[in-house]
């Protein structure tokens, strides 16, 4: 059997490894858009900052592809998929497949701001190539503007500040981290940013990128020109669905897949950032993060080999650090009631309940035990009996066992 994998990220590699573990004979071809071996995009901001050496980005050794018998083909962006002919087109070459896995990941969303695309000195922070280009530009940059205050935006801000740049953060919405936090929690994060010398401008989108002789010279936002030599655009990510054109593979914001990572077309699977789960609740439909990429990649691999395995659902959890202040968030940010805990030294934990079950939570400063809450949310555990303990950092795994033990002791 010949299996073709589009992509070379965590979903693609975890799928390839699972395939090889289960089937020693199948032919695996990986078509990579980039020209570098598998690396982790998550520590790219740390790489720009200088705290993570380049070698640590590469998570597999040099012989990985040869040893596992994977035919890796670099710089082959797939342009077209033909499910009828069971082949894909990459750089003018047709590659035939028996099973296809689309794990092409997501791309940075570039808002339609004049000059944002194509101006020298304007970068995204999504690939190793982006990070290298930023590092090169940092040499001549003194001031920087970061557009968007999501994960990548905040990580970029931190990296640039630690590199000694004056940084302005632009966020079109009224608060930082709008997808993750409510207004009150966002204010804490904003204060943290300001303390470290970041100019935070919320409710203020970039209007125009002004170009000088040496690339970008300023960003026009809210009618004010912010002079800068470096711009990082981090206005979110979206699945790149252009390769689906004419293939008949159903997609909405991402490629629609079922619990087995099958797309609407027979023999074609998808995993990672590119997928959407239409049957899941809103917050769990598209969650582009590392754990989901790895777990969906594995599930796709099993099902490509004909072994029925179902994915339990995407994990709507994420965590980011802003100048060493940990911020975690899971589930939705609205509920019937909110439990709250704070220590008076900057740590705040909020847990949201809906109909007696956990609906979500936001934790700043003290994030230990987030996983326990997240697991209870996934299981739909009735939590009313725990009362306000739920938001307390001491709330642990043992609390969920309490009824069992009460019976034993009675």
């Amino acid at each position, binding site marked *: 059997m010949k299996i073709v994998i589009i992509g070379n990220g*965590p979903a693609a590699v975890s799928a390839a490894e699972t395939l090889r573990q289960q089937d020693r004979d199948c032919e695996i071809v990986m078509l990579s858009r980039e020209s570098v071996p598998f690396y*982790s*995009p*998550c*520590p790219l901001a*740390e790489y720009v900052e200088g*705290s*993570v050496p380049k070698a*640590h980005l590469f*998570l597999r050794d040099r012989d990985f592809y040869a040893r596992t018998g994977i035919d890796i083909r670099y710089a082959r962006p797939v342009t077209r998929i033909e499910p009828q002919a069971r082949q894909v087109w990459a750089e003018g070459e047709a590659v035939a497949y028996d099973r296809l896995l689309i794990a092409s990941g997501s791309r940075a969303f570039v808002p339609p701001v004049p000059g944002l695309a194509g101006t020298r000195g304007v970068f995204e922070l999504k690939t190793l190539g982006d990070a290298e280009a930023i590092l090169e530009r940092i040499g001549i940059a003194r001031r920087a503007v970061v557009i968007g205050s999501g994960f990548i935006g905040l990580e970029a801000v931190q990296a640039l500040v630690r590199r000694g740049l004056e940084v302005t953060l632009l966020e079109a919405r009224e608060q930082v981290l709008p997808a993750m936090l409510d207004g009150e929690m966002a204010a804490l994060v904003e204060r943290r940013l300001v303390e470290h010398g970041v100019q935070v401008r919320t409710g203020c989108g970039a209007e125009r990128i002004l170009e000088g002789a040496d690339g970008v010279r300023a960003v026009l936002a809210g009618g004010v020109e912010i002079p800068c030599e470096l711009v990082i655009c981090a206005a979110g990510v979206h699945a790149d669905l252009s390769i689906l054109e004419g293939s008949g593979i159903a997609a909405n914001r991402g490629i629609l897949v079922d619990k087995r990572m099958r797309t609407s077309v027979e023999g074609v699977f998808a995993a990672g950032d590119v997928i959407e789960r239409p049957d899941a609740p809103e917050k769990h439909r598209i969650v582009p*993060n*590392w*754990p989901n990429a*790895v*777990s969906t990649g594995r599930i796709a691999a099993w099902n490509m080999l004909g072994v029925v395995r179902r994915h339990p659902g995407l*994990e709507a*959890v*994420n*965590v980011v*650090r802003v100048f*060493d202040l*940990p911020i*975690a968030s*899971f589930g939705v940010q609205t509920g019937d009631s909110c439990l709250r805990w704070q220590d008076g030294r900057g740590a705040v934990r909020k847990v949201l309940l809906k109909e007696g079950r956990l609906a979500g939570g936001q934790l700043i400063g003290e*994030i*230990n*035990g*987030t*996983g*326990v809450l*997240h*697991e209870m949310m996934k299981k739909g555990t009735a939590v009313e009996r725990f009362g306000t303990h739920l938001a307390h950092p*001491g709330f*642990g*795994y*043992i*609390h969920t*066992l*309490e009824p069992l*033990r009460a019976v*034993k*002791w009675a």
Partner: protein
Amino acid sequence: MSRTIFTVVEKCVACKSCEIACAVEHSRSKTLAGAILETPPPQRRISVEGVGAYNYPSRCQHCADAACITACPTGAMQRDGGTDKVFSDHDKCIGCWMCVVVCPFGGVTADPVGKKAVKCDGCPERTARGEAPACVAACPTDTLLYLTPEEFAAQRRQATAKAAVCGGESATPNGMDILRSLKRTH
């Protein structure tokens, strides 16, 4: 079958000896006096959690399908090929806390000073010498046991059988009974 850590929850009196022993084992000096003086202070990887009258020394379960390994974007969280225990390589850990927010047992904690994920590593140095992990060696009530699954099952069967023969009364006192007996003698 190799030996692993078992927990007999009824026996725990929350003395926290395991916590101290764990921190000492993971210090540079590996002595209590030395560990106290170290900066940053060594971190424990086991924590006694209490709910009312019940206690439980909570630690990593070394899951077969470990969520933390799946979630780790730097390859720091991994399984030791020899001991089969999940551990975090501090050189690779960037302290992104992804493992902390996905662990359903609260077994991985964020060390705010060292900025590294801290978790039970099963005391590889001790077990290589054939000794029990530090928390087990320190446990005075036999809440934590270092046995093979077969040994543990046999022990539990014997305890149950004894309890049945003794008319329902447990042959081995549990943690709360020990505490109560201490109160009576004073």
